[in-house]
């Protein structure tokens, strides 16, 4: 008889990462439970956009990991029952000026050499993407394999299927204490549970879970704002981001106004299946203060209007904020923890949680099952921060 309050593997956190882990672990036939303090997808995963992108990733490990995630997501579309607004139309980056255009050209060459499907776009290509674009955009680039999903519907869909594979789900169970003797004891506001292995997939809240086992996890909340535009006319078919914020990766200076740089604002415009559109983005370290900051929203609006001046009479119906789990080297921690055998961390994806959720779920399942992993997990190790082998 299976015990409702015991499992081989307990996953803490019902965001997109925890849900993906639950899916792969349950599918592998391992007895597992998911423990979530609120509702499914009630934190960062319902306060973000829905990009599964390579277009903004460094060539090499980062882009390889995203590509693996894209391939897994395409497979999931066949195995999951509940639709999650999966759209595979690629995505584009737009340049603000000729200096960016020059670097974009290099970027496309590097990505093509790595075997990824990138293409440079000129002024007239950009015009064809959307009639709302500014006339002075010099061009941009495209990544053909990028896709969009609805993150919270994806969570619901993963859990729906995971339950069929045997997952036990405990929501509104906030973890108050985790201790380990022979097995882990997890005390929550909605019952106590035992498990042989624990996966900490609590995102920005992962450090709190780590602390309960004296494990320091170097993740900080990085706040991001999003505006939702109402259904009016179709603006564009696929996701747009600006190239500008990649300039830093090339150690070149980004040319933008002081407010834009101060609030870490970069254009993201995502058309949603509901025919609304999302406008981002901002990046700020302000602790867990979730209030919408009007100065940031205004800066984002101005940035959007620089690229889409003809959207000035489109209505914004909602604004919200979410906390991205930031790490020093911008890679997630997907790792066993040597100090506490049986304890795993899968957190710290910052703005890539949607992009990397499926590969994260698959890797954790492979680590738990003792299989060879789909991609190398060396750069994702927890102890990289202590060994000072963080690649910046």
């Amino acid at each position: 008889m299976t015990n409702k309050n015991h499992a081989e593997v307990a996953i803490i956190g019902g965001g997109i990462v925890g849900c993906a882990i639950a899916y792969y672990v349950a599918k592998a036939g391992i007895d597992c439970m998911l423990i979530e303090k609120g509702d499914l997808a009630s934190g960062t995963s319902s306060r973000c956009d829905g990009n599964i992108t390579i277009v903004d990733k460094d060539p090499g490990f980062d882009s390889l990991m995203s590509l693996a995630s894209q391939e897994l997501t395409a497979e999931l579309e066949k195995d999951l029952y509940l639709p999650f607004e999966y759209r595979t139309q690629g995505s584009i980056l737009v340049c603000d000026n000729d200096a960016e255009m020059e670097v974009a050209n290099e970027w496309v060459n590097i990505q093509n050499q790595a075997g990824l499907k990138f293409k440079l776009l000129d002024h007239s290509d950009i015009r064809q993407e959307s009639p709302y674009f500014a006339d002075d955009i010099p061009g941009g680039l495209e990544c053909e394999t990028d896709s969009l999903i609805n993150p919270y519907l994806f969570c619901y869909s993963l859990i729906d299927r995971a339950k069929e594979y045997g997952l036990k789900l405990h929501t509104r169970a906030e973890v108050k204490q985790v201790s380990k003797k022979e097995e882990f004891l997890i005390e929550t506001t909605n019952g106590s549970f035992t498990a042989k292995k624990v996966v900490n997939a609590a995102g920005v809240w992962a450090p709190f879970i780590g602390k309960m086992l004296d494990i320091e996890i170097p993740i900080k909340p990085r706040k991001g704002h999003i505006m939702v535009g109402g259904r009016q006319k179709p603006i564009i078919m696929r996701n747009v981001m600006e190239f500008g914020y990649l300039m830093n990766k090339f150690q070149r200076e980004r040319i933008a106004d002081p407010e834009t740089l101060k609030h870490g604002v970069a254009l993201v415009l995502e058309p949603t299946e509901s025919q609304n559109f999302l406008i981002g983005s901002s990046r700020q370290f302000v602790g867990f203060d979730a209030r919408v900051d009007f100065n940031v929203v205004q800066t984002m609006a101005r940035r959007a209007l620089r690229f889409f001046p003809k959207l000035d009479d489109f209505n914004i119906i909602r604004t919200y904020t979410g906390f991205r789990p930031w790490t020093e080297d911008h890679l997630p921690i997907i790792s066993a923890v040597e100090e506490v055998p049986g304890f795993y961390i899968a957190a710290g994806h910052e703005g890539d949680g949607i992009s990397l959720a499926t590969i994260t779920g698959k890797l954790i399942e492979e680590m738990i099952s003792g299989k060879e992993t789909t991609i190398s997990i060396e750069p994702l190790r927890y102890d990289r921060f202590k060994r000072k082998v963080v690649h910046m």
Partner: protein
Amino acid sequence: MDRIVICRCEEVDLEEIEQTLINYQCSMREIKLRTRAGMGYCGGRTCRPALNAILEKVSGEKQPHQIPLKVQPPVRPVSLGRIGETNYE
């Protein structure tokens, strides 16, 4: 009885909301995300009281753990141009 529309912006009817509540035993926030009721142009200003009333009816009582529907700015839709205007203050 004819179809009763609860959320006019997203065209969500009573039956779909009740069925989702029964299937998932979830909070009103999750009902909103699963059905889009209250996520439209009016920001839920029209249907929020009705949604909360349905939750109470189906669950039989006020849920002590329920996650209430929040209200997000702006209070009413406002154009992107107006938000971006300089000298707003």
